[in-house]
């Protein structure tokens, strides 16, 4: 029994085995470092892509896809086109083409309708006065790995700076 124990102990303490353990540990560290580097590259690439998309959305170039500015411009342009199509002159022409004619006081018949309220001026207020705000970018899209580590470390320190 003692012999067996001694043999096992010798094998464990064999120089080639110790060296192999060290190499294994080193390789383990290396793999971990490679994983961290890979994650870093992945996150940085995604953050860069997201940032580029944001820049494209904020930019104002005709050759790209319509962006926020373009959409606002197109909306304004369409509204003006619509106003032109429904201008007084256009509407009068369409009404005349349909056989209508301007009313005179003699054409009018007034009926008393209890509770009737005359036409009032327009109220163009939106239901909520708060304009929809673009969602703010999460720090995940902009911060680097080092920023993230710093932030996590800072957030782990209790208020007052006491560990």
């Amino acid at each position, binding site marked *: 029994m003692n012999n067996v124990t001694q043999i096992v102990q010798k094998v464990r303490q064999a120089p080639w085995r110790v060296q192999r353990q060290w190499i294994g540990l080193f390789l383990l560290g290396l793999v971990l*470092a490679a994983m961290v580097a890979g994650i870093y590259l992945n996150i940085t690439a995604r953050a860069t892509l997201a940032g580029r998309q944001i820049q494209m959305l904020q930019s104002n170039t005709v050759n790209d896809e319509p962006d926020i500015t373009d959409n606002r411009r197109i909306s304004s342009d369409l509204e003006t086109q619509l106003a032109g199509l429904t201008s007084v002159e256009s509407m009068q022409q369409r009404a005349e083409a349909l056989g209508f004619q301007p009313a005179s006081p003699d054409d009018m018949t007034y009926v008393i309708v209890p509770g009737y309220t005359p036409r009032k001026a327009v109220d163009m207020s939106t239901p909520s006065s708060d304009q929809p705000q673009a969602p703010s970018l999460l720090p995940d899209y902009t911060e680097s790995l080092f920023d993230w580590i710093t932030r996590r470390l800072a957030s782990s320190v209790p208020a007052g700076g006491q560990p």
Partner: protein
Amino acid sequence: MRMIYFGRYLAIAIVMALAGIAIPIQIIRVQSSPEVAGITGQGAYIWKTFYPARGEIYDRHGHLLAGNKTVYEVGVDLTVEPDAQTIALAAQMALGMDPTEMLKKMTDVPDGTQYIVLDDFVAPDKAEQLMKLQENAQADPSGRNLDALHFKAHLMRSYPENDLASTVLGFVTEDNHGYLGVEEKYDNVLAGIPVTLLVPADPRRATEYPRIPPGQTLILTIDREIQAAVEHILDTALASTGAESGTIIVMDPRTGEILAMSSTPRMNLNEYQRVSEIFPGETPFNRAISQAYEPGSVFKILTMSAALDTGTVTPGTIFLDTGSITVGGNTIYNWDRGAWGYQDMTGCLAHSLNVCLAWVSTQMGNDSFYAYMQRFGLGHPTGVDLAGEDPGRLKLPGDGDWYPVDLGTNAFGQGVAVTPLQMVMAATAIANDGKMVYPHVLYAQLRDGHQSDMSPQIVGTPISTQTAHTIREMLANALESESSDALIPGYRIAGKTGTAQIPTPYGYYDSDNINASFIGWGPLDDPRFLAYVWLEKPQSNKAASVVVAPIFKQVIEKLIVLMNVPPDNVRLQNTGQ
């Protein structure tokens, strides 16, 4: 064997260790290298100016009067060695530009220039034509290309109603500056505030831009249906009377809201470059606020109001009209040089007797008469929110050009210069129970989705409520007794004509031409509208009662329909009176 394995393991370990060290080093090196920073823009920031869209202008019912449309800036990127010949030819085809000039523009540029603008404010159809040429050129095997052409879309002012309410709106030039009318008066509000930001070029540092608020949207008191009707009536009136120019104002006398304001000439605001052609010399852009003139007999409503308010006369005061009166050493006659005998004050208004009104003003005296005229706001701008208002001229005792006879002539609207809007504002005191209201065209401002409505402002109470009721009754009776052409069956209105001679630069009055005016409001007991019509130098007739009263009637007939004003009997039945 073990040594062999050890060597292999060691070699693998060294290689992997070197790789493990090299990768982070390379990452750091790449990120911090100036070449990569130059490509990605790391650390680089660009100053970028954001121009907010110009605020829109709507009428009181939400119809767009001034909006924005898309136009293009066409430029050439000089960093890609442009095919200047092809670009010049394409610009000639699509934009009608001189190719020689284009070539010169692209070649005679300072060193380091990266981009030049060929043309701006290009219409979408022309820009699209050029884009099509660019697209076709890409498939051209000859090597000609338009790759260096760049198109940048942006907005410019557009007026979908063309010339409707043009004298009220004013216009905006290509440099986004408003001129005349609302566009100039509210230029700062409409244009918004450009914001310049330092923007990171590095996509990893992309940040959220702050929201650039567009220019504020304005809602005017103008009703486009009434405006269109008034403009049509005015144009027709000018054609039928041969008048040189005309002006019509429609206002709500209870609030001072201007529902329509038109004068001639007008112009299509989308062609503002023609402004000097359409308004040559000193032609006013908006006569309603910019052209002071001697209004003639419409002024008598102010004189009589002042006299009633001071107690100088009552409606029943009898005046013996002998056909002339001497004031300050000068003799004043009636419009027909006739003597009308005994007249009460309503008769004086009904027959528009200059002699009677001159007597009234002399009974009041200088101090009282001119104090009242100033309380009516004469001689000062009304403060209307439109650019280019003329203050008019009310000569006062003590002024170098004031003479004692002016007390007599001013009483019937001679020797005093007012704008149509000044007369309208003064008349609101009579129509509105003595309270004179501030005339304005801004109904509301819209900012961040919140609408702020203007509140009516009373600028003074020149006469008492009792006086206002008395004078409006006298004016209604005067119209009815004369069977005026301005009357409309079923509606009781107050009003007064004005036939005024036109002073010449030589100190005498033009015997061939007149200014014909009419001011009136209704319904008498609850005024919803006040209208002022002025025709300059009508040729068809020299009497306002013949020329302008029917035009006033046309305006009122339209207002009744468009504003849903029922006849007096229906309205009073509804209110239980």
